[in-house]
């Protein structure tokens, strides 16, 4: 179910008394929240990269994070499963399943099994396709060969890669093309059956065809996973996501249903961005 939103030149919507910020309140309606943040602040040394990051994400929906380079959207995403821990100071709360996961008491490694992440550049391990998928599983549990085979098949099918690689599962993953490798990486993340999948510009390093394949994959995954995706590509955000958050200078400026943001943004800045006036 692809959104059919036409991106219009939006200057006509600008009115005198637009707000400086608009955050759609998910908690008001009948929405199941998968993960939410409160007072999230991320700083690299002295530099504050993100402030006032208060967002909630609905379960089994795709949310896009858009904004110019350096707007803080990637920083925000990477803070959600604490990938920034080693390089930055992250303050504030990240609520997941009723607990704040941004505390020392939380086992990050366990947490990341439930909140998976896929990066901009495909990064398959120097292992076979099969082992790429099973590796993280076997590190922490007992599986029979049959179970593993099944998991490999399902996750590759979910990532729409099964048909292309089913006969060469023993091949080195480094031999895959860019689009295939990225889908393998997604399959690898899915094999752990996470709740939430974070994607940091997953298709920006890919050619248009591979990019479209990845988008298809994400749409298919929606019924089982909560997906948060950072993208530079506004068409992509418009095509696949249910919600969109617009970041600017380390702040969330507008957060709303994708349909609304791209047709009738409430903040002038958002309007400027999506109509291509900056960024």
């Amino acid at each position, binding site marked *: 179910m692809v959104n059919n939103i036409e991106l219009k030149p939006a200057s006509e919507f600008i009115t005198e008394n637009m707000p400086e910020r608009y955050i759609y309140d998910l908690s008001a309606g009948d929405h199941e929240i998968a993960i939410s943040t409160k007072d999230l602040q991320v700083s690299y040394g002295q530099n504050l990269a993100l402030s006032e990051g208060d967002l909630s994400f609905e379960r089994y929906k795709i949310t896009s994070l858009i904004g110019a380079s350096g707007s803080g959207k990637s920083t925000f995403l990477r803070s959600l499963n604490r990938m920034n821990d080693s390089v930055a100071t992250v303050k504030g709360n990240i609520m997941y*399943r*009723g*607990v704040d*996961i941004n505390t020392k*008491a*939380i*086992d*990050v*490694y*366990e*947490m990341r099994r*439930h909140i998976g992440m896929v990066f901009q550049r495909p990064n398959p391990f120097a292992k076979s396709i099969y082992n790429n998928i099973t590796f993280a599983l076997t*590190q*922490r549990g007992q599986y029979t060969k049959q179970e593993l085979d099944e998991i490999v098949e399902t996750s590759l099918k979910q990532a729409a890669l099964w048909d292309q690689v089913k006969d060469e599962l023993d091949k080195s993953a480094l031999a895959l093309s860019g689009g295939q490798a990225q889908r393998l990486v997604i399959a690898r993340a899915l094999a752990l059956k996470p709740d939430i999948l974070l994607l940091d510009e997953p298709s920006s390093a890919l050619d248009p065809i591979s990019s479209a394949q990845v988008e298809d994959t994400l749409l298919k995954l929606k019924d089982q996973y909560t997906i948060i995706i950072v993208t530079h590509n506004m068409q992509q955000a418009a095509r696949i996501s249910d919600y969109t958050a617009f970041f600017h200078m380390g702040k969330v400026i507008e957060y709303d249903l994708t349909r609304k943001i791209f047709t009738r943004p409430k903040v002038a800045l958002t309007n400027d961005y999506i109509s291509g006036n900056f960024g």
Partner: protein
Amino acid sequence: MDNITQKLMQKSESTKKDSLGRAVSLAALSLIVIVVISIFAFVMSRGLSTFFHDGVHVKDFLFGSTWNPSVVNPQTKQPYIGALPMIFGSFLVTFLAAIVATPFAIGTSLFMTEIAQKRGTKIMQPIIELLVGIPSVVYGFIGLTVVVPFIRSVFGGSGFGILSGTIVLFVMVLPTITSMTVDTLKSVPRHYRESALAIGATRWQMIYKVVLRAATPGILTAIVFGMARAFGEALAVQMVIGNAALMPHNLTSPASTLTSILTMGIGNTVMGSLQNDVLWTLAMILLLMSLVFNLVVRAIGRRGEMK
């Protein structure tokens, strides 16, 4: 709390493994540090006992030019323990070897990185690695059978001396300096070269004005590392330098280095005697010099970063 939340609050196996792995690898690292510290402490305590236990003056040791620890000077009642000839000899061969080796190293590295990259890596890379691999005994053997007779027939004398030592060390430090210079040259960004060529510079102008300038700190580091290796080399130098604890008055008269006197004497002296202690003092100087070389490398690195 559901199952997953509970798991989140517990230490996972990964965390436990990680702590263990971290501890194990830190232990390995600490072991190395302990080894270094104990070698350091050991050599220092032995070397310093010359001054504290045997009552030798540091000045006499560093600047005296007569070395004969088993004989007591009738005037000062102190043995002859002037180490200046060896210190001077060590520095002289080291600097000469570095001076000779540097142009060769830079030329070879330029060949490998700028002129003929394909052939460079295919032919010169293995050659450089092989030169590193040749044992110093073999270098000494070649020095003794080829270099020394050659020097003798050209310059007269015995053939043993600073010049022979320099030639042998030159070949030994060449690969060290070259391979490190190659690394530095490779790290000079490509767009430096491209922009130089784009404004019409010839290849040599590009190399000389852009690449070498940018790589200067790295090349200096490489040279200092080469010198550190030359300074500490023992067997090969000992076989060709002649081992006379005399101030060298020309390049072809027998001379000595810290390492050569140290290796020769250590078996013939008795532990705890002054003759033995002074040899450990020589070892201490070697150790301190390798520390100095490292500090120099660091200083160069910092200045390079600031630029």
